[in-house]
């Protein structure tokens, strides 16, 4: 009925958080005397910036909810006029709709977030491995 609204709400919140983190990272870069165009160089030394990692989550949430919204439009559950959700027209449908958002929608948002956490862990592992390799290379050269 409207299960995609839960991941959509999370997408909005995460996007706001991402903007704030980006600002902080830019401020840190300018404080340390680095140009923001040198982000790529920074990535090579201290891994992928967190703003980019959080971008993975926003893309999954926005993209997933957009494609699910298309499915709901296809099934006539979402319409381009107010109140947009056809379930809202019938008071008897409102309760099941809210129930669906709370169960299916929240589970969708949680699963996407859980997958993102796994992606973070894999990324961290790869970054650590890269750091170890570069440290070994330096030791051999030294």
């Amino acid at each position, binding site marked *: 009925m409207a*299960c*995609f609204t839960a*991941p959509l709400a999370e997408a909005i919140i995460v996007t706001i958080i991402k903007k704030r983190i980006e600002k902080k990272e830019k401020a840190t870069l300018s404080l340390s005397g680095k140009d923001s165009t040198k982000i790529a160089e920074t990535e090579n030394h201290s891994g992928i910036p967190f703003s980019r990692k959080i971008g*993975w989550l926003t*893309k*999954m*949430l*926005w*993209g*997933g*909810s*957009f*494609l*699910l919204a*298309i*499915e709901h439009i*296809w099934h006539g559950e979402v319409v381009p006029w107010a109140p947009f959700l056809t379930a809202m027209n019938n008071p008897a449908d409102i309760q099941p709709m809210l129930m669906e958002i709370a*169960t*299916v929608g929240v*589970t*969708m948002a949680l*699963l*996407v977030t859980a*997958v993102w956490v796994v992606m973070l862990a894999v990324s961290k592992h790869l970054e650590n491995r890269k750091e170890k390799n570069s440290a070994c290379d330096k030791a051999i050269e030294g």
Partner: protein
Amino acid sequence: MCLVITAFAAVITTLIWYFKAHNENIKFSMLVLMYWGATLMWVVDGFFSIAKGEPFLDLSINDTLLGFVIVLCGLAVWLFVLLYKDPKNVFDFLKGAHKQTPTDINKNK
């Protein structure tokens, strides 16, 4: 079928991203993550369908057609973002037209 088609699109785009298009400029990762996000959400939907006593997959022609529409919509969004970001600066002439100062216009005359 919608889930299967989207999952298939997610796997194919992941492989393309890994072997050919991991360049951040073309924003291909956005398309990959979009398909994976939708796939995960439909997996959850499928499990809730089982709980309701319905099948996990809807194998109707209508749902198959919807799957292709979903894939096309994902591609359309990616194309729109790509053209908007314009990594190759193909639309620079348009930006240049906006940035023209009166002095530039006089020089052109």
